[in-house]
């Protein structure tokens, strides 16, 4: 059996812009535009990039919640056929998601036990007694008291609610968890508790994580591999430690230099690359390299053609005409 759990090939998700003649779309937002990504068993892959780069859309496509315009996603070697209720149902046994905001992710009218048991209900897993037992087991697994199963979400703090959301995501023994900014909405002193829990669960259950985040110090701590996304394209991928130590793509470089380090002495010595301007609209991306409007290195070729991902070291790829020229 191959150890590749999830394989994404040339994935495109284009959304129509309404308002064209006779109901035809006036244009397309290319949220994800030709992405390749593999996730192995037990591996954490982080997807980083600014808001609007397409990272959450990619996550939603992997979950089966959005139908891609082109390309393929295979899970354990089997292609995911989007749009079929049966696919959604079988996929949700294997792939689950943990959202950013645990307050809106839980139904306030259900007890947390009911919320955690809901996936089991939907999938007709076990008897009522078995489900109850499973809920208790899951609550223990995430560090909460099984006796609290009959309380409502408002009895819990933000960090505890995130634990409940994680317990619900684990109810069906998934193989892949999509973590969409799992600690961003939490207080700083609670974040490390949740990160530790996620690391421990991964070790214990052999989970794979697709970790969507803009917090690069958390990504560095958490992920084996990192994929940097810009305007629907991957611009650099590779093992997290080597990419962070030695970024190739100018966007990765700027992104890393923009994160202030929690160390005033070090921070003063750093050279910060301040990018000009904002992310261009994905409805109207620049021609050529998508980063060309903000790139400090851009030359004429960058305005003409889009650079392909080239090998730039062990398991590393980058798409840049200047730093990773095609041979």
């Amino acid at each position, binding site marked *: 059996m191959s150890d590749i759990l999830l394989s994404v090939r040339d994935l495109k998700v284009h959304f129509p812009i309404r308002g064209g003649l006779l109901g035809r779309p006036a244009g397309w937002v290319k949220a994800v535009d030709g992405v390749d990504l593999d996730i192995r068993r037990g591996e954490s892959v982080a997807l980083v990039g600014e808001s609007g780069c397409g990272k959450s859309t990619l996550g939603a496509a992997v979950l089966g919640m959005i139908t891609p315009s082109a390309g393929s996603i295979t899970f354990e070697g089997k292609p995911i056929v989007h749009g079929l209720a049966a696919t959604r149902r079988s996929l949700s046994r294997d792939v689950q998601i943990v959202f950013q905001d645990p307050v809106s992710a839980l139904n306030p009218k259900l007890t947390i036990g009911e919320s955690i048991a809901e996936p089991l209900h939907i999938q007709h897993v076990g008897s009522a007694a078995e489900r109850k037992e499973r809920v208790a087991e899951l609550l223990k697994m995430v560090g909460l008291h099984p006796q609290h199963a009959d309380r409502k979400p408002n009895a819990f703090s933000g960090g505890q609610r995130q634990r409940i959301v994680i317990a619900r995501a684990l109810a069906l023994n998934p193989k892949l968890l999509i973590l969409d900014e799992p600690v961003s909405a939490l207080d700083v002193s609670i974040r490390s508790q949740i990160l530790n829990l996620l690391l421990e669960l991964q070790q214990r259950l052999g989970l794979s994580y697709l970790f969507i985040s803009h917090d690069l110090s958390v990504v560095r701590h958490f992920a084996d591999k990192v994929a940097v996304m810009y305007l629907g394209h991957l611009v650099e991928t590779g093992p997290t430690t080597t990419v962070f130590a030695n970024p190739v793509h100018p966007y990765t470089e700027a992104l890393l230099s923009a994160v*202030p380090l929690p*160390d005033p002495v070090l921070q003063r010595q750093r050279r910060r690359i301040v990018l000009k301007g904002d992310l261009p609209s994905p409805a109207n991306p620049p021609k050529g390299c998508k980063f060309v409007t903000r790139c400090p290195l851009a030359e004429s070729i960058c305005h003409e053609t889009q650079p392909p991902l080239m090998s730039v070291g062990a398991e590393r790829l980058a798409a840049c005409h200047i730093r990773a020229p095609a041979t």
Partner: protein
Amino acid sequence: MTAPLLQVNDLRVTIGGNPVVDGVSFHVSQGEILSLVGESGCGKSMTAFSVMGLLPKVARVAGGSINLGGKNMLTLPERERRRMRGNEFAMIFQEPVASLNPLMKIGHQIEESLVVHRGLNGKSARKAAIAMLEEVGIPEPEIRFGQYPFELSGGMCQRAMIAMALICQPRLLIADEPTTALDVTIQAQILELMKRLRDETGTAILLITHDMGVVADMADRVAVMYAGRVVEEAPVDALFARQEHPYTRLLLSTIPRLDDEPKSILPTIEGLVPDIGQWPVGCRFNPRCPLADKPCLESQPPLAARSDQGNAACWHADRVGEIA
């Protein structure tokens, strides 16, 4: 030495009888950036709103004084305060898009305080507003002047709000989580802009944040708040080099660093931030503190001088270094 621009002494704010700010003192000098750090519910935003005179209706100042440029803000008539707000001191908020008036053109929102405070007429106010938009790095300022907030990105709105806050060249800028809602590359632009303005105009900045990276990057001095009180206060280098309050030490140690061992177990702070109205007796950090013993459960430690510079409020300040 000249008196500090802003001096807050023993400030107390209550909501429904429960204290939310409980004896907070600090000062900010001209040209200085003071970072007020803490988690949600520690009272940092309420402190800022008190200085601005913009406390929500349910909140009430129960004691203390706020002295800004020689005037006691708490006893000043509202009419006087309104004359100063937006003129001598201004505030930028966390959610730029939500804080701008959606029905008013960006340019009009920026020139408003010039018209109100400086009595400028349409043409010269417009000119100044466009110059300010350019100053904060907004491209095509003439076009942006006539646009509405929804036509601008989040980073652009935040810059417009900074332009609005700075148009009258305030002596004090209060920035409440100014970059929390923004992407890191836009955050970098905004932080650079704030530093440049401080360097060029000598504006003092009270920077409220929970991001220790932003603190390290921006602050001259740091005041750490926990459960309504300042628990430690020191120059930024001294504070990051040595902590004399366990909360500061733990807060810094729980952040993943770019040079630590990947996937190692991070230090954690046990327990939760106590809710307002349920603050523990004695030191408010005692239920979560590894050093807590009998005195900590009985009485609240005062803010006392640290061994180097600054102050800390811990009965065991000399043993904080033992916490791994």
